[in-house]
């Protein structure tokens, strides 16, 4: 049994496919996996990846840096204004961003923007590697 997964961004529907299971991580709630028939659910997504697992065992990994997930009936909708599929990620840029963020964090431990940038870069690299 599968359900429909859509990654909706302001610029359009960035990803759409059938899946058997979707794994995401919500703010405060940790990892959560959805399967068809899940109770209606709305969650705030953490800076993390979203795994879409197909019925043939294949998986798509999306880097979602901010957003919401809504599960209703046979639809999983991921709303995000900053998200990328694995093949869209610029690994070099993510590495560079990571370094910049680390330097900034070393200088100021409480730099929230840098911490966020670091988290984003980490997710990008993790997602890109998972695909490679």
């Amino acid at each position, binding site marked *: 049994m599968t359900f429909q997964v*859509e990654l*909706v*961004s*302001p*610029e*359009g*529907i960035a990803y759409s496919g059938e899946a058997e299971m979707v794994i995401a991580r*919500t*703010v*405060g*709630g940790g990892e*959560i996996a959805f399967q068809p028939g899940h*109770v*209606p*659910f*709305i*969650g*705030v997504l953490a800076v993390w990846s979203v795994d879409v697992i197909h019925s043939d065992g294949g998986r798509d990994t999306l880097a979602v840096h901010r957003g*919401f997930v*809504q599960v*209703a*009936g046979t639809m999983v*909708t991921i*709303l995000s*204004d900053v998200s990328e599929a694995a093949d869209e990620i610029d690994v070099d840029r993510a590495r560079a961003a990571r370094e910049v963020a680390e330097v900034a964090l070393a200088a100021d431990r409480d730099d929230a923007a840098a911490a966020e940038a670091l988290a984003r870069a980490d997710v990008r690299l993790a997602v890109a590697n998972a695909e490679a």
Partner: protein
Amino acid sequence: MAGGRERVLRRRITSVQKTKKITRAMELIAATRVMKAQQRARASAPYSRQITQVIENLAAAGTQVDHPLLREAEKVERVGVVLITSDRGLAGPYNSSIIRAAERQVQNARAEGADYALIIIGKKGRDYFRFRNYRIDSFTEGISDNPTYEDAKAVADTVAQLFESGEIDRVELVYTEFISIGSQKVAVRRFLPLESTETMAEEGGGEAGAVASFEFEPSPEAVLEALLPRYVEARLFGALLESAASEHASRQRAMKAATDNAEDMIVKLSREMNQARQDAITTEIMEIVGGAEALGSDDDTTDTPVPVGNRN
């Protein structure tokens, strides 16, 4: 000399023809841009629809939060006006009508005894208000032609910050609504404070989406708090996209009118030129005939007329 008028007219026709080529090209470019802008507006629709749906679900769950974006000021001391204009002209009445509407908002604010803050997108709006010595609080250029979500976010953040810090107590969004290629309308909408979740849900055309009772994580309040800034951004992005489509549609119409006028002018000028040429020829013939007759009357004894131009 008679040929002079003809030459002047010919030069004008060439000039109008060249202008026509330019306006025709601009019309075609604008036409393709309208299509693209419309497509982008359509592509962005699912996102705002989904955001509204989540808000509906939150409203159905009776979620209430005390978010700074919802703050209703007891006394409005400063009104923010967000104005979306274009960077380039030649778009017919597109800019002037939207600027007029924004200026009216500023005057209304003053009439209520409140100060104003102008947040302007597009060079045309800035030029107008700067020339009239208005204070401009924020100006962004280079985005109204083809706005990206990042652009919308940057402007929305500026506005939200001004609002949350209490510098402005109300924000009006002045933009052009795209109804169809043939029809665009100036729209003035309350941007901030946001209305209650119930009203937002109703405005979103609240379908029966909110039947299921949802589980929220971490909590309904936290979801709503995270959602409100996104909602503000998405609304501004939508307005930017509609304005871009309207701008291109206006330009297309203005350039079509210009091309048509150029065509009419060419027809009119060509007629005038032909008439001038005809006149010149007639005058020339008259001169020749007159000259010949003068010669003939000089010497009555000769039967054969002297060939013209062969006079010693």
